[in-house]
């Protein structure tokens, strides 16, 4: 039975991993089963999903590899001076 049932600590980690698409089918099933009977984890999961949607809605930008290399080059030049 313990193969199926997980505690709340484990469930909350699974909830976070789910936001990154990191769960395998067994873990997803265990998580769903736990949420089925635990109101706290169900609520946490909802908040977690809402938070993830917020994060996704933000436009994150990143330096391109070329930009990073250009900055690194400047830094290395300055360090060798």
């Amino acid at each position, binding site marked *: 039975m313990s193969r199926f049932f997980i505690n709340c600590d484990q469930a*909350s*980690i699974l909830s*976070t*991993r789910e*936001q*990154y698409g*990191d769960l395998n089918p067994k873990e997803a099933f265990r998580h769903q089963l736990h949420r089925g009977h635990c109101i706290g984890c169900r609520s946490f999961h909802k*908040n*977690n999903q809402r*938070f993830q949607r*917020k*994060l996704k*809605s*933000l*436009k*994150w*930008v*990143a*330096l391109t590899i070329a*930009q*990073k290399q*250009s*900055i*690194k080059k*400047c*830094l290395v030049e*300055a*360090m060798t001076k």
Partner: protein
Amino acid sequence: MRKEIEKQLPEVKLIPEKWVDRYGDYLFNFTISRVNDPIMAQDLVSETFLAGLKSAHRFKGNSTERTWLISILKRKIIDYYRKINSNKGKAEVRMSYLTNSDQEGDWMEEKAADLRNPNVEDMIEQKELSDVLEECIACLPERYATIFVQKTIDNLETETICKEHNITASNLWVIIHRARVQLMECLNNKWHKNS
């Protein structure tokens, strides 16, 4: 007493070789949300690292490397706005506007945001939210913040992050989970209560 406490604190060492990989994207995001120009943002980030290198001997280790770099960057951004708001800067902006555009019209009117436009409202909200989130990320322990940013914003593979920080995958998920819980609480306090 103070000296004794300082002795007990772990010494924070600067590692300039890793600055670009560790903080490049974070500083770039921070800058671009304030200057709205990717080329200028890249220049400011680069200048920040160079200024950090120059004043490395003044770093006392009282704050983290990232907090220290952010404080330098903030000063760079203020300098940038001072420059463009000087009379000479305004003239340069106006000149470039006139030479780049065939249209004639009131410059201020065209540059000012139309607040009735829903997209503008969304943009303002997004900007405010990302500012609050940046503040919240800055409040996280450095290790949590770095790992959270690498996984969530930079979309790095779990394995890559684990190798860099020498941790197991389960450690990584615990760190990300704790970071997210703290960020959610912080957002609740700073964002939802204000809106």
